[in-house]
């Protein structure tokens, strides 16, 4: 990016382009670099430093069970990537067990190329369950 700007400034200094043309070229270089420079890498690094929290807190005095789970997004992403490496017969066994437990989620829908969008969507997740004896919170931070 610095090289491109230097070339434009050199062309301006040599009189090959006018000041207005140089200004247009410089703004075009800035615009072209914006998405790849800041957006993408920042999104990935911010996702990797995030965590998924699951917290179960008791409401009254009767129950004192507390659960607190903190899982790095990186672990979820690694899990999604590794899912494709699991042999098909093992995937089928897992799928059958999930179906038996009432989870109608298809494991084959999880693909490494979808991992980033899945994690981005998960980042917005916030679940609050307010039961009689406890509260459950699932969120990302």
């Amino acid at each position, binding site marked *: 990016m610095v090289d491109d700007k230097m070339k434009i400034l050199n062309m301006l200094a040599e009189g090959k382009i006018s000041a207005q043309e140089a200004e247009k070229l410089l703004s075009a270089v800035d615009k072209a670099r914006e998405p790849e420079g800041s957006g993408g890498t920042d999104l990935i690094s911010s996702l990797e430093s995030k*965590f998924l929290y699951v917290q179960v807190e008791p409401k009254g005095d009767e129950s*004192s*069970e*507390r*659960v*607190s*789970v*903190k*899982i*790095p997004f*990186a*672990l979820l*992403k*690694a*899990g999604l*990537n*590794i899912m494709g*490496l*699991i*042999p098909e*017969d093992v995937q089928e066994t897992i799928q059958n067990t999930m179906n038996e437990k009432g989870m109608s989620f298809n494991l084959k829908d999880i693909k490494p190329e979808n991992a980033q969008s899945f994690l981005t969507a998960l980042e917005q997740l916030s679940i609050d369950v307010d039961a009689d004896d406890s509260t459950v919170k699932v969120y990302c931070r």
Partner: protein
Amino acid sequence: MLPMLLRIRIRDDKTSFGLFIPLIFVYLLMLPLYLLFSLVYGVVLLCTSPKAQTRLYMGLVFKLPLLLAAARGTEINVHSDKSKVILYIK
């Protein structure tokens, strides 16, 4: 980066134990085995043509360090009147 500390604490009416495991020592102990295994696997690949399924399983084994690295920062706490379970990977 691989996690460097594993903390496990389990306590209930009958058992109670806690472990602080500096994982660097585990890695140092496992490294020769891992290298040896890789070497043997390489030789097996050259000499035979293993099934696709076997190659997948081996791929999983070689991806385990990545999974371990990604697990850094995991914290699990379960507390109740009678039991307590803590697992930290740092």
